[in-house]
């Protein structure tokens, strides 16, 4: 297994370098620069600004300098926010985004796997159809619709939860976590239902039942481990997706997470910030995929022996 991990890490490094290089040149190809604004600054000022940020050097020299600094772990200063380094901005937003993703995944896991398992066990009954229909709606409903609907109901109509904020008012983390988790809960419900159905038809389950084990023990002790394997392999990309895709929820709920920095950096042509966040997200996706692969290896003996 150690070999698998080492191999994956060895592949990850060139992948990240390629991502960094591609992003570097792609953002430079986009029209408009970081200091373009509706009120045009005098040419002298633009010249000074370009000089301050080394933007007056030839592109290849800038690329060389950037990669050299990157290898040393320096993402450079933000162009949009003078006095802030990209690293500082990433590590300001990251804990918030992580926390949001963590709560969202808990919501998704709790609701999703519970609904999926019940649906599989009570196959072709109302307890199957209703949760699966809701799951389908959940997958289809975008967060930018679900979020404001929840806010209108719980925040403005019932006045029981804050409509925005993070760590400012009591209960302000509930609605964003549910909003972000809902779509994933729906996926997990469908995946766990499928996984459970497959597992429940296996011989070892029949054996367990034949031995006279009560049904809940059959499910919890024997079926769950196999039934949730598809969910576990989905979790890696899901967590990465939650972190990278939290922008909408962060905007709706005014959450100071990394997603907002990322998207705003692209609009502002904050070159170093775009590069820094892209590289960072790539590394995260690779890392979480690796984690979920390891978890699958641990849960699935056949995959382990193949590895």
């Amino acid at each position, binding site marked *: 297994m150690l070999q698998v991990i080492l191999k994956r890490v060895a592949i990850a490094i060139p992948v990240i370098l390629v991502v960094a290089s591609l992003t570097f040149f792609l953002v430079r190809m986009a029209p*408009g*620069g970081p200091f373009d604004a509706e009120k045009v600054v005098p040419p*002298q*000022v633009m010249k000074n600004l370009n000089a301050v940020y080394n933007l007056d050097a030839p592109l290849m020299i800038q690329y060389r300098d950037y990669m050299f600094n990157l290898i040393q772990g320096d993402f450079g200063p933000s162009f949009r926010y003078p*006095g802030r380094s990209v690293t500082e901005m990433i590590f300001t937003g990251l804990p918030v985004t992580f926390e949001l993703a963590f709560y969202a995944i808990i919501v998704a896991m*709790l609701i999703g796997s519970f609904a999926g398992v019940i649906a599989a066990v009570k196959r072709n009954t109302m307890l199957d159809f209703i949760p699966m229909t809701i799951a389908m709606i959940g997958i289809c409903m975008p967060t930018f619709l679900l979020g404001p609907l929840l806010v209108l109901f719980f925040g403005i109509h019932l006045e029981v939860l804050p409509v*925005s904020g993070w760590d400012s008012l009591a209960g302000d983390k509930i609605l964003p976590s549910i909003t972000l988790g809902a779509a994933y809960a729906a996926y997990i419900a469908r995946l766990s239902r499928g996984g459970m159905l497959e597992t429940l038809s296996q011989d070892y389950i029949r054996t367990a039942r034949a031995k006279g084990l009560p049904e809940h023990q059959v499910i919890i002790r024997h079926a769950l481990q196999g039934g949730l394997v598809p969910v576990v392999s989905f979790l890696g990309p899901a967590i990465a997706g939650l972190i990278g895709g939290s922008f909408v929820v962060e905007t709706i709920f*005014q959450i100071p997470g990394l997603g907002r920095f990322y998207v705003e950096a692209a609009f502002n042509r904050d070159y170093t910030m775009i590069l820094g966040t892209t590289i960072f997200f790539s590394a995260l996706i690779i890392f979480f995929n690796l984690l979920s692969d390891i978890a699958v290896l641990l849960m699935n003996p056949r995959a382990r022996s193949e590895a």
Partner: protein
Amino acid sequence: MKIKQLSLFFLIALVGCGKSISPVDSGLQEKILHFGNGSEPQGLDPHIVTGVPEHHLLISMCEGLTIANPRGGENLPGVAESWVISPDGKTYTFYLNKNAMWSNGDALIADDFVWSWMRILTPSLGSQYPDMLYYLKGAADFHQGITQDFSTVGVKAINDHELRVELNNPTPFFIKLLSHYSTYPVHKNTVLKHGSIDDRNGLWTRPGNFVCNGPMNLKTWELNKQIIVDKNPLYWDADKVKLNEIRYYPVSNESTEDRMFRAGQLHVTNVVPLEKCPVYIENENPNLRIEPYMGTYFYRVNTLHPVLKDKRIRKALAFALNRTQIVERVSKCGQQAAYSFTPPGSAGYEPDTEVPFDPELAQALLSDAGYPNGEGFPVLEILFNTQEGHRKIALAVQQMWQQNLGISVQLVNQDWKVYLAREMTGDFQISRAGWIGDYEDPNTFLDTLRPNRGNNKTGWENKEYDDLLELANATNDQSLRYKYLMQAEQLLISEMPIIPIYTYVRQYQLSNDVKGWYPNLLDTHHPKFIYLER
């Protein structure tokens, strides 16, 4: 069993939160103003930043020689308690308030202004607003590196409390410039402790390091979450300051901001969502504020374009627009149809121009230019940055031009930076634009269309216009100056390199608890006059 436990958990979670006292209600008791501030400020260094959210923050934490009058009109004393202007209008002597001090207790002296103005004019700082001080003698030369000797610039400290400023021309609006944050003083020792004079990335603006001289102090700054400022007891006019704290929230999403206001999380919003404005007007929402604003929404014409270089065509386009219909049926939020570039009423200036809605005259002009009934006229392109409001206006304009002139119009929307890049390089035919005044004077509008100005972007050059503005700059007689400016404006409108559409209004929501908040053209609300009362 499990279902019961789960429902119980959610019930407790929800009931536990219960109906709690809202920030607006608690703010009333604790004198805390909750302020929707648009977006995360770039920073808090007055010599580096540009933008409205930064302006809101800086007027609360720092102070220039004068402050903007909350009711509009002439500026009020700030650090300068009085000033004397020489008869030729070119020399200003400021007498500084002896009680003015920095938030760390240091005395604020005239030298602080000299050093601060040297800083903003230092080329390697890369400040984006040095031209605010280009009115000073020698300032442009110093900033452009023609001279390295700052003593050639027209600002001198006569003694600790007397500052003398020499200008190139009598500049009647100079006092108004001095409430702009780019002219604010910065604390020399603090700046130098965290970097050099030209360090853009110095950490002196962080909480704990920040030293300035305004009515409030920087308390905390959480990126993308909030900035809290609290009352500065060392401010020279601290007795007048009634707020204990202001919390600025960088809410860039208009709908989120609207919901926050409705849930009692904000006293004041930055804007009203586009689609909500007509609804709030119809429902007579008591919190809705629609106030005159010193800004013009217009269409910029590329006068270097082979067809649009003909001023008859530009005028035909302008005369074919029914502005009243645009503001009443499209923008629908109290905007006023515009018939001049400078908004009427700026510092007593009333532009004497006309842009009639006259389809027949428009057709005649088009026909004169060789396109009777629009025949043979190439497809026109309107460039705008992606935003629903701009799209709606462009659709209305497209329809009016097609109907009244018989010409085809194509709409091109682009991402903000692409739109800016295309405007800058002249890669457009007609583009939507807006201009908000930096200070209350027609010069802030008319100056942009002079030939060598970066913000002109139309390619339009007119010697007579330039001469009129030069004459206006040279005179110390305000009525004569306005006469020249009016002539310049008439010339501008007769040439139509820009097609005015409407005069902006400020639309936002304000809690009834907020007092001492008055409408004014520049939308400047100085915190020292604001208080909360129900």
